[in-house]
């Protein structure tokens, strides 16, 4: 029989194999365009890798004089302090926005406005926000606090609003049926359902804020970042790697604390 010859082709998620190859070809063409666009040149890449290897030699070992060490500690404390204060202010600002951005509790126009606010906060990188904050209120940790507060709102309100949208509306109706005011409904029907997630989210955001607070100093918004930029500009690479090491240690510590707390709450 002619059909005795059987052939098998791996199935594909695309509608047909032709679509699959078209998509792949399109992606590759895009990457080639990107490579040409940014002046990708293998010789330059190899040279860059060579330079990086040399630079790594300059980085090692991490080293800081006693005065530099004190400076790292002081500025790192400033970073952590900024993150602490801004986490609290950020959460305070986020909670009402989260309620207004929850589809099941909020009227349509209010919902749209607050979702827009969240998108804006999420769209801009902390560095951009920090530059604007520095221009508005001047150099120093106050600009940093404003930046981190603003960035916290986008993250915290979005996730909290999603949790509020997932609550059991039955208990809301039950509390409402007792004749409670809107405030009482929020306090006794909505709040108890979101508190565990709230605690987890707060700690998670605190962890991210510690990370953010270590870099925004690069544009003058307080914290260890300014020390890092100065060290870089002086080509003092051993000092740079000491600073980087301190950042890595602090970030890992915060991540560890946040992971432990979140595991206990969830």
């Amino acid at each position, binding site marked *: 029989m002619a059909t005795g010859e059987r052939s098998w082709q791996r199935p594909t998620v695309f509608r047909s194999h032709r679509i699959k190859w078209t998509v792949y070809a399109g992606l590759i063409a895009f990457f080639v365009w990107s490579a040409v666009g940014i002046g990708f040149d293998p010789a330059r890449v190899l040279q860059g890798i060579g330079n990086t290897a040399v630079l790594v030699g300059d980085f090692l070992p991490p080293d800081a004089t006693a005065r530099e060490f004190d400076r790292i500690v002081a500025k790192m404390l400033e970073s952590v302090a*900024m993150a602490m*204060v801004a986490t609290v202010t950020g959460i305070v600002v986020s909670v009402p926005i989260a309620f207004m951005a929850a589809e099941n509790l909020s009227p349509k126009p209010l919902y749209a406005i607050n979702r827009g606010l969240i998108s804006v906060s999420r769209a801009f990188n902390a560095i951009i926000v920090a530059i604007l904050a520095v221009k508005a209120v001047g150099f120093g940790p106050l600009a940093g606090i404003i930046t981190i507060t603003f960035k916290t709102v986008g993250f915290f309100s979005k996730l909290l609003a999603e949790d509020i949208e997932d609550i059991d509306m039955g208990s809301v109706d039950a509390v409402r049926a007792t004749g409670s005011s809107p405030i009482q409904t929020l306090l006794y029907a909505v709040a108890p359902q979101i508190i565990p997630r709230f605690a987890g989210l707060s700690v998670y955001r605190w962890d991210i804020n510690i990370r953010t607070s270590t870099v925004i100093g690069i*544009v003058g918004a307080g914290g260890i970042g300014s020390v890092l930029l100065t060290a870089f500009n002086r080509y003092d690479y051993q000092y740079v790697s000491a600073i980087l090491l301190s950042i890595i240690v602090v970030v890992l510590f915060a991540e560890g604390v946040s992971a432990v707390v979140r595991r206990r709450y969830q």
Partner: protein
Amino acid sequence: MATDQPSWERFDRRRRLGRFVAVLVSAVIVVASWQFMEIGVVDPNTVPREIADLLTRMYPPDVAYTRQIVGPLIETIHIAALGTAGALVLSIPVALLAAENTTPNAATFWLGKLIVTVSRSVNTIIWALIFVVTFGSGPLAGAVAIAFRSVGFLGKLLGEEIEEIDFGQVEAIRATGASSLQLLLYGVLPQVKPALVGLAVYRWDINIRDSTVLGFVGAGGIGVQLFRAVNAFAWQSVAMVLLVILGVVVVTEALSAYTRRLVR
């Protein structure tokens, strides 16, 4: 009798005490932090007024400036795309090292974890500072910085996916006498492919946002234009750049969410 009155409380005494202590400690830390920064008492009028002042100067956005930002904007997208592609290539060996079931031995496992940790703990902008020194300023340094930052993210999450695969399939492929490359291609890859695509797209979305600031340290992209406008106090141009960034970010986020829904 007083004790006849049943009273109900949501938490027992120990938990209430624990809560009280936790709140107290946090309050003390926050107040101490505020004192430490020596900002003092901020006049509640000045900050909102200064911010409002900045925002009014931004209005209306300078639409004519758009022509000058299209080029840098495309460059930003290129940086994000190439950085993500490079990170994807680099992250596969890292993920294989950092996954408990595919790593050859304990030393390679810890090497994988070390790469993931260092890459993730150092912000993109700091990576960019380093690579601008070695690759020279320009978008290439930016793409390398994006790639180095993303390797940790992709390596970690991909490694976790690899740890959860069904090893029976890998054993089955091995029983056919496959080489280790074939094992990876036919035993491991098909099981993590949806996650791989989803993670790559997700990271690409984050990278678009990250690559908007690379210009600040000379690593190319729309950031160059943004900082030039900020330093010239051309607030209306700044507003236009911000609007364009917002538009691009919203589009990429929608695209990334759509693709991730497809592969899930």
